[in-house]
């Protein structure tokens, strides 16, 4: 069973699907929080995610050039995230806040403009060509391989994927702590529930919005860095490529539902990879070229059947 089916399925479809799912999940958390609390679809989210990955690369490159040491991406991501969080603040202050009282669609337009501005900025600063994020071939983790071989199932999981899994779990745990145990987290849920009531309750909505950008921003950078670690390179289209699956994940999970976004992200990531598995016969069920279309298909079906999402988010 394992020989014929499991080995290939788990190592080449399931694990990569899970990795992609983790990345989508982290990205979708920010999208769903912004959608729930600030009430608009932020098209610039993917580009900010990409910005985080590029900054991380820059910090790693500087560390190597100046100090002569190789810094782990997750370490370099910490200073990068501070810059990106400020970027979130600035875009909000200069481009989104002026429309807070206006029609939602104006903010969506502004965020669409931001998407192009940020991408162009990345292309101007770092150039349009691909950059190598981490060189070399990722080897499977030997102890995991040894252990799993002993029990008769060979797992080929490189360290980078283990980092991504562990990191995602950590982020989700911290997120749930923030949302359920801290004052600001509860206020975030309250504003997501009803901004008007939050306002007349005396909750400092501006503070809540800042917290939303921080939480969403940190998750976005993690997603961006994880993606760069996974594909081992950076390109200026990576933010845009992530955008649609992240929206799909947020809608699938229910707008304003962070856990829903996590589940949605995992579902989308897994379905994208598993869609290429030869379920019937020897040929891939769906040509790998159409992988990215899977997210869209799921999203459209969801919008028709259940626009409020799996977890009863807000439906408009």
């Amino acid at each position, binding site marked *: 069973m394992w020989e014929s089916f499991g080995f290939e399925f788990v190592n080449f479809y399931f694990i990569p699907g899970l990795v992609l799912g983790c990345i989508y999940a982290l990205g979708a958390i920010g999208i769903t929080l912004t959608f729930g609390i600030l009430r608009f679809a932020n098209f610039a989210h993917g580009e900010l995610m990409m910005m985080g990955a590029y900054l991380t690369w820059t910090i790693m490159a500087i560390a190597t050039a100046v100090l002569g040491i190789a810094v782990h991406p997750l370490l370099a991501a910490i200073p990068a995230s501070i810059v990106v969080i400020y970027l979130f603040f600035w875009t909000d202050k200069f481009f989104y806040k002026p429309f807070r009282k206006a029609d939602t669609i104006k903010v969506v337009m502004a965020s669409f403009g931001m998407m192009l501005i940020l991408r162009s900025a990345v292309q101007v600063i770092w150039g349009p060509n691909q950059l190598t994020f981490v060189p070399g071939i990722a080897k499977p983790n030997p102890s995991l391989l040894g252990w799993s071989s002993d029990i008769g199932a060979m797992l080929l999981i490189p360290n980078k994927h283990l980092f991504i899994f562990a990191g995602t779990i950590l982020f989700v745990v911290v997120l749930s702590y923030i949302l359920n145990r801290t004052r600001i987290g509860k206020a975030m*849920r*309250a504003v997501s*529930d009803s901004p008007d*009531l939050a*306002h*007349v*309750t005396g*909750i*400092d*909505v501006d503070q809540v919005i800042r917290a939303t950008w921080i939480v969403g921003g940190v998750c976005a950078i993690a997603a961006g860095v994880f993606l760069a670690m996974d594909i081992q390179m950076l390109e200026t289209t990576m933010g845009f490529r992530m955008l649609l699956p992240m929206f799909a994940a947020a809608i699938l999970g229910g707008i304003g539902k962070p856990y829903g976004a996590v589940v949605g992200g995992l579902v989308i990531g897994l379905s994208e990879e598993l869609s290429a598995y030869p379920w019937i016969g020897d040929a891939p069920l769906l040509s790998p070229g159409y992988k990215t279309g899977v997210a869209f298909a799921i999203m459209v079906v969801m919008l028709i059947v259940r626009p409020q999402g799996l977890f009863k988010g807000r439906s408009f």
Partner: protein
Amino acid sequence: MSVLSLNNLYAGYGQTEVLHDVSIFVNPNEIVAIIGPNGAGKSTAMKSVLGLLTINSGNVELNGKDITNTPAAEVVRLGISYVPQTQNVFVNLSVQENLEMGAWTRPLGIRERLAEMFELFPDLGEKRNQAAGSLSGGQRQMVAMAKALMVDAKILLLDEPTAGLSPKYRGEIFTTIQKIKSTGVPILIVEQNAKQALGVADRGYVLVDGANRYTGKGKELLEDREIARMFLGGGH
């Protein structure tokens, strides 16, 4: 000196003026009811206190201090607690979390205040970890009032607290309102159920077409024949 006073208020939504020369005041330790037909501007009068609409002239004073056009969040900080008519609880938050949100502007003593509230509203104590959205209409109203009282309110504003509730809950709400008054918090209440409201109110205002029509003691208004004929459902 009155706790809250609306003086010769002309106000409305943007260009549409709803209130024309409305004056209302609430003294310490008093329940004041605003009654009147639909569209008379009852809720508008209340919202004008919270800076939620355009005030063209006149002013709003809290303990003699002018608070006209102060933003809602600031008004709450100054000690005016407001319970909107609908959507007055965070449905996805638990009862206790709702109360904690009500205490947002309270620096200290949140835990003690929570205990006091669960004493004042014993039903809520049992359901503190339930989502507010899962409660019945009457219980939600209780949560909303408790949430508003989490701060040391100088005055409590209730916008039609019994709208859409069954008669049983209505009675309970009015009993609770009197209990709240006994803790020393004056209350301004807007009500459709004029009879019951005037029954518990010390004083009442009748608004018609956005202007003061009658003012008087609760009892007097209840017994006034003309008001009875107009607003209390049939002459008697």
